[in-house]
């Protein structure tokens, strides 16, 4: 069983932004085990609990991939919480 991690993200309220984020996470080989979202006006704050499909999936690399998105910022990176799933 791979470890799960929680990533905290601030995301602009733009067309397709949620799809863009979630699609990226799944496409890069992670399951989404949990998600919560809080409305902050022009943006949204999201906590995503993710787990790699296999041991080769790097949470650090996923973080870098998220950083490439526009209108998306990781909060407190790279201090995500790590716990046994």
């Amino acid at each position: 069983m791979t470890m799960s991690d929680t990533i905290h993200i601030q995301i602009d309220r733009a067309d397709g932004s949620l799809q863009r984020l979630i699609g990226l996470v799944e496409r890069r080989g992670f399951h989404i085990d949990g998600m919560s979202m809080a409305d902050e006006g022009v943006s949204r704050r999201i906590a995503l609990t993710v787990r790699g499909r296999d041991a080769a999936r790097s949470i650090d690399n996923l973080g870098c991939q998220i950083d490439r998105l526009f209108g998306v910022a990781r909060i407190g990176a790279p201090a995500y919480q790590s716990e046994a799933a």
Partner: protein
Amino acid sequence: MSAAAPALKTSPDAAPQSGARLLVSTLERLGVDVVFGYPGGAIMPIYDALTGTGLKHILVRHEQGAAFAADAYARASGKVGVCMATSGPGATNLITGIANAMMDSVPMVCITGNVPQGVMGTDAFQEIDILGVTLPIVKHSILVRDASEIPAAVEQAFHIAASGRPGPVLVDLPKDVQFATAVAPFGFNVPNEAIPLNHDAIAEAERFIRAAERPLIYIGGGVKIAKATEAVRAFAEATGIPAVATLNALGTIATDAPGFLGMLGMHGTRAANEAVQSSDLLIVLGARFDDRATGKLAEFAPHARVVHFDIDASEIGKLRETHVAVAGELKPGVESLTARLAVAPLAIDPWVIRCATAAAHHAARYDAPGEGVYAPALLKQLSEAAGDRFVAACDVGQHQMWAAQHCRFSRPEAHITSGGLGAMGFGLPAGLGAKLADPSATVVTIAGDGGFMMNIQELATLKRYGVALKIVLLDNSSLGLVRQWQELFFQENYSEVDLSDNPDFVKVAEAFGIEAFRIDRRDQVEAGIDRLLAADGPCLAHVIINPKENVWPLVPPGKSNAEMMEGA
């Protein structure tokens, strides 16, 4: 990030204009001169606004041709390529071209019309959620919901497409937004994204290089994109470190330059792959450890530590452990490293001699028996005859690999190929886009009979605009690369690769009004190349080659680059 982004200036226009007009004037202000596209219902206001402007619209005959042409226009010019299409099928026809630009990091802006916002989400006629459909294959995308936002959105799209690691950006414009009038006082403020040079990492890279006995430069397509060609050449010359290149990096170091060992990977040279497998330090510049370059990753460069320079931090450590990571602009990073290393020479003479000896020993031979056309020799001759203004716009297949292996490239812009996506059908529209971007260049589309048929309709575009593209159609009456794999890896079970019922390509070209002739013997090659290059307008050379010819050497899929196969 990049200084390559266009200079964006705000010029507030007081008078209200339609969204369509705002789009066109923004494109003009951004310095766009050529747009590739195809009209349709949901983009008619924009086509209405195009007339009488300074924008040159190239009407292709299929939207995929527009996207591929815009991609190659960007690769040949260094500018952002622009294509446009209507909603629904127009937009979906762009998709393969968008994916191609994404995979090879090409700056492109794709403008799509969409149905009016009031009916979006109702399955309206020609409605497709193109923003949703393209999410995995764009660098970014913007659905503009208010005409007043068009200038800022388009400027932002151009900035994102060109800056950092470039890529395609989609701008989707519902029809009501194109019709609506607005005053658009906004300009996009270019963010300051410069990443400071990491001097500590560069100093560490220097230490690794000085400690290495068998260092090797592994050049990727990112060098050309970063306009760091001269910096990388200076680095290689100053240090004497041998170099290999990926498919998309050919020409970064001239094919015949000393120390250049050729392409690595599946159809790379023996000298390049042997050097990689023996190296104790890979200096990776703007490359991403693609599987066609690495072969079996676990056995790739087994003795090497890795120094990796890349603008995209997500590529560093993605597939291969990195010992020194230098994330940021390539050019200043490499220049700084060169300055450090130029102070005292490296003691790598035995390694340099070993690499040069291997390169000489494994040099390609062109004395194939028989009287038929030997495609590798023809391509070498073609590139030599075309000289420094040569640009090869390749399709995908055996001919693409032969071009990569045997053409002489003196600059990276001379080789335009669908590397990451490997999209058949790229060659002809890519040649169109490249020739329009660089009219003084000798642009030659190198295609096979399979891929050529996928966008053959663009012959009409060549004729319409008098684009003097030269086409070398290497016809083996089959899907050659698939046939080769079936021969080698599927027990010669030739399934659906026979194209011997191809049309007469000379007659087809002539029907489009394009000069064409046939070459089917080796003794016709020299005169054929002369005729092709001397033609004033577009011209096609239909070259008959042996269907049994294979691409050698070859690393079987999933195998280590140490296990190269060679033909009889």
